[in-house]
């Protein structure tokens, strides 16, 4: 199982991105609400295991308590007969769903990509609620 190393990797990339784009994080501690990851059907990652590892690995980090949103990316192949990209209904059968032509030319579906982080930053003008 390599979901723990994937989660650790994701956390350091996310923290790096937050630091670059929102340096205030350390001082005024905005809350991280959501981290969105695109996971291809053929990325070799189990979403459920990754959720579990994410929760554990974010403890004691500024990402603790944030939600991991996993967007699944379907497997898309190029069909040389149709000369078009086709989404595979099943990754157990690499054949064009339109014309039945076998094809191994994978165009999408291996993604493992941090795409978006949702923060809630304290308002600078009004004092923090509570």
């Amino acid at each position, binding site marked *: 199982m*390599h979901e723990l190393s994937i989660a650790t990797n994701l956390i350091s990339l996310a923290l790096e991105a937050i630091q670059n*784009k929102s340096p205030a994080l350390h001082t005024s501690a905005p809350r991280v609400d959501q981290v969105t990851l695109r996971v291809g059907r053929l990325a070799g990652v189990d979403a459920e295991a990754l959720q579990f590892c994410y929760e554990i690995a974010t403890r004691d980090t500024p990402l603790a308590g944030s939600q991991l949103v996993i967007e699944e990316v379907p497997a898309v192949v190029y069909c040389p007969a149709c000369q078009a990209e086709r989404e595979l209904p099943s990754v157990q059968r690499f054949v064009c769903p339109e014309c039945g032509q076998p094809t191994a030319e994978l165009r999408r579906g291996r993604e493992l990509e*941090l*795409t978006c982080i949702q923060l809630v930053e304290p308002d600078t003008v009004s004092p923090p609620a509570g």
Partner: protein
Amino acid sequence: MTPRILEIRKNLLKRNDEIARELRSRLLADGVLVVNLVSGPGTGKTSLLRRTLTELRGRGFRVAALVGDLATDNDARRLAETGAPVRQITTDGLCHLEAAMVESHLAAWAPGPLDLLFIENVGNLVCPASYDLGESVRAVLLSVTEGEDKPLKYPTLFHSADVAVLTKIDLAEPCEFDRAAALSNLAAVRPGIPVLETSARTGAGIDAWIDFLLAARSRLAADPLPGR
């Protein structure tokens, strides 16, 4: 409180992919074909590799092997008996090898000029699929004893391979191995994949496997001539 959205686009495996790409181009430029052997535990990676190292050495090629293992050095010892330089990468429980491990072990090891470098990955049908090690050939092994439907159960790994090797072919008959089913399952997840059949026990099919590797090396590596 103001919600704020940071739009990012970062590949989690970028670092691994970059190291792998760099390794591959550097090694190919040096005329080294890197072969990554992947399979489930016990499929026959070490046994095939032993035969392969011995045979290639006999034909005058310079070969070496890096062996990933969770905890033991048994495989490395078995491979070192061939006389080829062998180096163990103990992963300490990590279920796959990563490009950075290959890079650092190669740097610390310097096995001398090579024609082919083999990497035996950790026996695992899931995790090694995601990690490019800088190989030019990824060979997935499937033994006749482990079930013809493995490609359908682990399409990610089988799809990622450049060649499939059916191992322990000497046991095909006693195991009532369904060759047609295995071939059709392999073709389903990776249309057009070349399939070879070998037995590390009897030596059957080893020559064809070696020929396949040497043809790949001539095609890919800068210096196609043996033993130079």
